[in-house]
């Protein structure tokens, strides 16, 4: 039993690594993608739009397989499995985050930009100090949903053979002829998402000082 728990914890660690690395890269990359999507240059916004459509319009599992196998056929070399997972998740989640950011940015009233302009703020200052903080508040609920989905999506990493929590649990199940490990894994996901949703509740409360 403790042997099983230890294995599950190890799988959890891999899942958490995928989770945090994905967030680390996709959260900022999403800003760039959102800016590209809103770019006045039609070519840039068009290309970015196609990228977002592909990311949102095809299954993540397929993108994962593509990122892992396609480079081999083109270049004769692949990422290692774990890196492929991170790359696939980052480009997928960046697309989703970008659309959330874009919705948030476009919901900021024009008057905020106009007041900033008349007061002499630079474009950068307007974005970082006036627009972005208000966007953060507005997108917190949508971001919360997406991050919870990410916790569950980490289970797909097993598709290309990364031993994350769910794979470990399945292996243990097969070994012990019992579904119990899978239910324990389910509990682990549930706990992780409790933490995620509590964290988002905290941020929401913290930003509730104005509306």
């Amino acid at each position, binding site marked *: 039993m403790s042997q099983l728990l230890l294995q599950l914890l190890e799988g959890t660690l891999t899942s958490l690594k995928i989770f945090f690395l994905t967030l680390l890269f996709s959260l900022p990359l999403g800003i760039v993608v959102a800016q590209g999507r809103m770019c006045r240059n039609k070519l840039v916004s068009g290309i970015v739009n196609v990228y977002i459509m592909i990311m949102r319009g095809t299954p993540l599992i397929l993108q994962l397989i593509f990122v892992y196998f396609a480079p081999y056929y083109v270049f004769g070399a692949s990422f290692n499995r774990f890196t492929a997972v991170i790359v696939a998740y980052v480009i997928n989640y960046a697309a989703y985050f970008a659309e959330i950011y874009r919705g948030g940015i476009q919901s900021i*009233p024009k*008057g*905020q930009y*106009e*007041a900033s*302009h*008349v*007061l*002499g*703020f630079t474009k950068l*200052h307007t974005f970082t*100090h*006036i627009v972005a*903080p*208000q966007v953060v*508040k507005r997108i917190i609920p949508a971001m919360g949903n997406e991050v919870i989905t990410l916790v569950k999506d980490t289970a797909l990493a097993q598709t290309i053979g990364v031993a994350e929590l769910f794979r470990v649990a399945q292996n243990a199940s097969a070994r012990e002829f019992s579904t119990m490990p899978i239910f324990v894994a389910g509990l682990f996901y549930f706990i992780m998402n409790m933490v995620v949703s509590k964290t988002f509740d905290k941020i929401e409360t913290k930003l509730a*000082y*104005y*509306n």
Partner: protein
Amino acid sequence: MHVISVKDIRKGFGDLQVLKGISFDVDKGEVLSIIGPSGSGKSTLLRCITQLERIDGGAVEICGDTLATTDDDGTVVYSDKATLRKIRLQVGLVFQNFNLFPHFSVMRNIMEAQVHVLGSPKEDARRVAVELLRKMGLEDKADAYPCQLSGGQQQRVSIARALALKPEVLCFDEPTSALDPELTGEILKVIKELAAEKMTMVVVTHEMAFARDISDRVIFMDDGIIAESGTPDEVFGHPKNERTKKFLARFE
């Protein structure tokens, strides 16, 4: 030297000509009111002066600096970035719906541009803000957020925010139109106090009695042109233009 000098400015949106050649000057210490029916181009005019819109023709000068001119072949030429920036700080604008920054306290709303645009030290900026808040009768609201204030209080904060940059001229675009009727008085009182201090102001308003009371000069705009202008007594007391008469009759 005029604080604002506008010569024959034109502005359109697509096929719609909104400003069809507007000229006027504003001198130091003068209060100019702009009245006129909805859609006549009053806001657009202020927005051209405050660089929120680009003009299609004509010239604008602020305190002797050229904001934009039109050369012989009809091309509008705007000044370089540094000049535009300098001019921007000389012209304040108070919006109809305040446009305060909701995530900043009242204090920070007033300090932000002083610190990040003028480069004032924080303590100085705070002192200026405290002084302005006292003037606006809001000394106890420094730590409040805009959503905790009434419309009238928000508008007073936005006036303080504009004044904090010590502009040469302050423009108001219908500063009381978004307010409940019982709150307009407090804003009009503030503007009147500023007028008494010889603050140069351009006020777009639908408050005729107020315009008559505080203005040195009044412009009546109609359909993108200045249909009539003069002292308050001339425009309100003895309007010459039929359209002015008709417009004013609505406020009798």
